């Protein structure tokens, strides 16, 4: 079995994987980073989104071996150094942007990606950007509000 190494949330990690092992399986099963979820088998739901080399990726749609040498950030790497919630995470709590929490890691990772590209998105831009993420609980109302709040907080902090 091939040995792969990568940096996940700032830590160097490595492991042996089968050729068919998906990145999401490597994160969840080999590294115990269970915040990245699996909600579908057709790359439609976005519960598995993480950041790989600066871009948001559906980790159910990428082989672990393909991430060899990559820089990966998962939801476990989104809190502040002192363990308090990061700006986007805090905005989700403040605005009740989650209910069961299953889609939430993917939503936060997608929101981070959006805000990096477009720090001040309109409501329509936010809704369009969430196209690859499904939430069944919230009706998206408060997710959109959370991302707007995170945007405002990040712009204000600049």
């Amino acid at each position, binding site marked *: 079995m091939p040995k792969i190494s990568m940096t996940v949330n700032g830590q160097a990690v490595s492991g042996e994987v089968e050729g068919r092992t998906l990145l999401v399986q490597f994160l969840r099963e080999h590294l115990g*980073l269970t915040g990245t979820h699996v*909600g579908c088998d057709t790359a*439609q739901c976005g519960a598995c989104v993480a950041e790989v080399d600066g871009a948001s990726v559906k980790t159910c749609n990428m082989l672990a071996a393909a991430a060899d040498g990559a820089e990966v950030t998962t939801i476990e790497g989104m809190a502040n150094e002192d363990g308090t*919630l990061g700006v986007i995470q805090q905005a989700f709590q403040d605005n009740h942007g989650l209910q069961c929490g299953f889609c939430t890691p993917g939503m936060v990772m997608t929101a981070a990606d959006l805000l990096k590209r477009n720090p001040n998105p309109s409501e329509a831009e936010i*809704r369009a950007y969430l196209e690859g993420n499904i939430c069944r609980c919230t009706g998206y109302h*408060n997710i959109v509000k959370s991302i707007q709040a995170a945007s405002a907080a990040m712009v204000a902090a600049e």
Partner: protein
Amino acid sequence: MAKDSGIGASIKRREDVRFLTGAGNYTDDINIAGQAYVYFLRSTVAHGKLNAVKTEAAAAMPGVVRIFTGADFAEVGGIPCGWQITSRNGEVMKEPRHPVLAHGKVRHVGDPIAAVVANSLAEARDAAEAIEVDIEDLPAVVDMKAAIGGDAPAVHEEAPDNICYDWGFVEENREAVDEAIKGAHHVTTLELVNNRLIANPMEPRVAIGDFNRASGESTLYTTSQNPHVIRLLMGAFVLGIPEHKLRVIAPDVGGGFGTKIFHYAEEALCTFAAKALNRPVKWTADRSEAFISDAHGRDHVTKIELALDAEGKFLAIRTNTLANMGAYLSTFAPSVPTWLHGTLMAGTYTTPLIYCNVKAVFTNTVPVDAYRGAGRPEATFQLERVVDKAAREMGIDPVELRRRNFIPADAYPYQTPVAVAYDTGDYHATMDKLVEIADLKGFEARKAESAARGKLRGLGIASYIEACGIAPSNLVGQLGARAGLFESATVRVNAAGGIVVMTGSHSHGQGHETTFPQVIAEMFGMPEDMVEIVHGDTARTPMGMGTYGSRSIAVGGSAMVRAAEKIIAKAKRIASHLMEAAVEDVEFKNGEFTVAGTDKKIDFASVALAAYVPHNYPLESIEPGLEETAFYDPSNFTYPAGAYACEVEVDPETGVVDILAFTAADDFGNIINPMVVSGQVHGGIGQGVGQALLEGAVYDSNGQLVSGSYMDYAMPRADDLPSFTVDHSCQTPCTHNPLGVKGCGEAGAIGTPPTVVNAVLDALNSGGINVPHIDMPLSPARVWSAIEAAK
């Protein structure tokens, strides 16, 4: 000023911190050392005779531990049904056996045939491909009308006509209803379909069986809304495990919406296999598997008739419904089209005569059961669609027609002609609120503006009521329930004064860990962070009946209040001893016990300490300790109600429907956490819009589920929905539970579908076209075809 603590405060959810940092503990996040993995081989045909399942070659493949087939479960009970319905002729419903693994026959695509246990999931899946299944295809029946047409194949030998039951309600009203309809000034008739839906919580189902040979205890970790109910059904009826040897744990659960209420074959298989193999056994559904193994929802075909007098007063309603049960009876399936549907046919109106006939039909499809709202959405959809059609036919404004028929605010308690008695309500108030916040007066101007851009703008209105907090046990028992529907709670005060509440309610996104402590904090005058909630584990909580039908705060919360009241009563007696006062003179307020007319006082923590360190304590008359349990069985359902409005724009060139605004005015009685309540409404609206515009489980005539993955089943996404305006300021508190609460979890899913459909049809009855009805989902193709046909 808004409160920042206790009942009525929008405090932030404590559970969010773990969900937002990836520290949640969902069932699939659990791995037990040495676990094996199960893969289910499922039927790919909808109906067939199972001649042979040959497993020898597969069993010899790498990593395979054991392969189970139907034969292994011949001595084991089938999956039980929890509700029995009696037909009009007095016969009880047909209740064919539902085996854990198919035996003799398969009856729907997805029916499990074999369970392969292997050291890894990949090995289990590989081995499953090597199993040789000899199936003789039988003709399948999917369409309900065809199923009961006489020459259709029988899904079960026990029900040759494919009818599970033929239920009439209220049977004594039938002739009077017929008479009233015959003699009415106007009768509006509507035939409609309530589309089959798939609940699709984002977390797929998972089950992990574990067996401890030392203690003889089986443990099941499962994605469930009600671990105690699973323990009861699986332990007693399927596997025969005594309750004290079976523990069911439902940790963080990623949404349920009904589909995680029911007891499923996979739970029984994993528990059974773990004991047989003396090894933990784990199953995780993938999404495509969920589509053919989770219970589906809705699926009614109905004809409804509404009789009116010349002034538009409703005189009578007659409905005939075919309700799909699928291939087997899921846990609560028989109750959904009957007692959860027929009893709501009065809606918010004074219609004096109602008759409802429901025929439940077996077909070669996935079993159907309760989905968010369960029965109430079906009732509301029929009613609010037929009322809207009547308004158009009679030329009466739809808001005005509803108002003419609302049960007046001074008529409570109000006995409906369909068995239930509403305790409180004020439907004019929610409608007034809606008219104001949705700016209905401004609609015509907005419509003109849309018309200028070539778009058809429509305004849809609906009024709904639902029955929540399912109870009381003695009533539901008479109606055929095989379980009680109370809830229990234990309130444990710790020695230093902190409180732990153990509840039978289960949170799968509703926020109990935050809202239940708000109630306790208010009662005891302490900060919320002194209160902890324990739920989701049969070993750590008293008996429970779980969370569905918006019963958590109304029933579970009331049990908690009753237990807390016992604590306060005992604590007062302890305090009276400590303060040397008569117990009648002791008052408890803001966390302090005082003696009337004196300056004596003692705080709650000191009383708690005295109960556990009983040095100066009336041991001769009061037991030490401060822990109480209450079982609460409500005397009635609760009746949340509201009025919804939706504005859409239809593009007549493409049939695309765009929701521009959605407004909800709800009456949920008293509210514990307004932020959480709004969130529940938002989610319900999202699912309601999904049903109205996008979602539908589609079978082809051979019984293949065509919409069997997210590639084909249209889940609502962020840009399918607008931001919503919701208001819960109209409050008529429930009179029979101690909190005055009604329940809010399903409202959006109930009120939304007719609102959206009414809006689209309003648009399609302008500009010279006239479309009487379109069945959901209102896809662009359907809308466009209806426009073309009406031209």
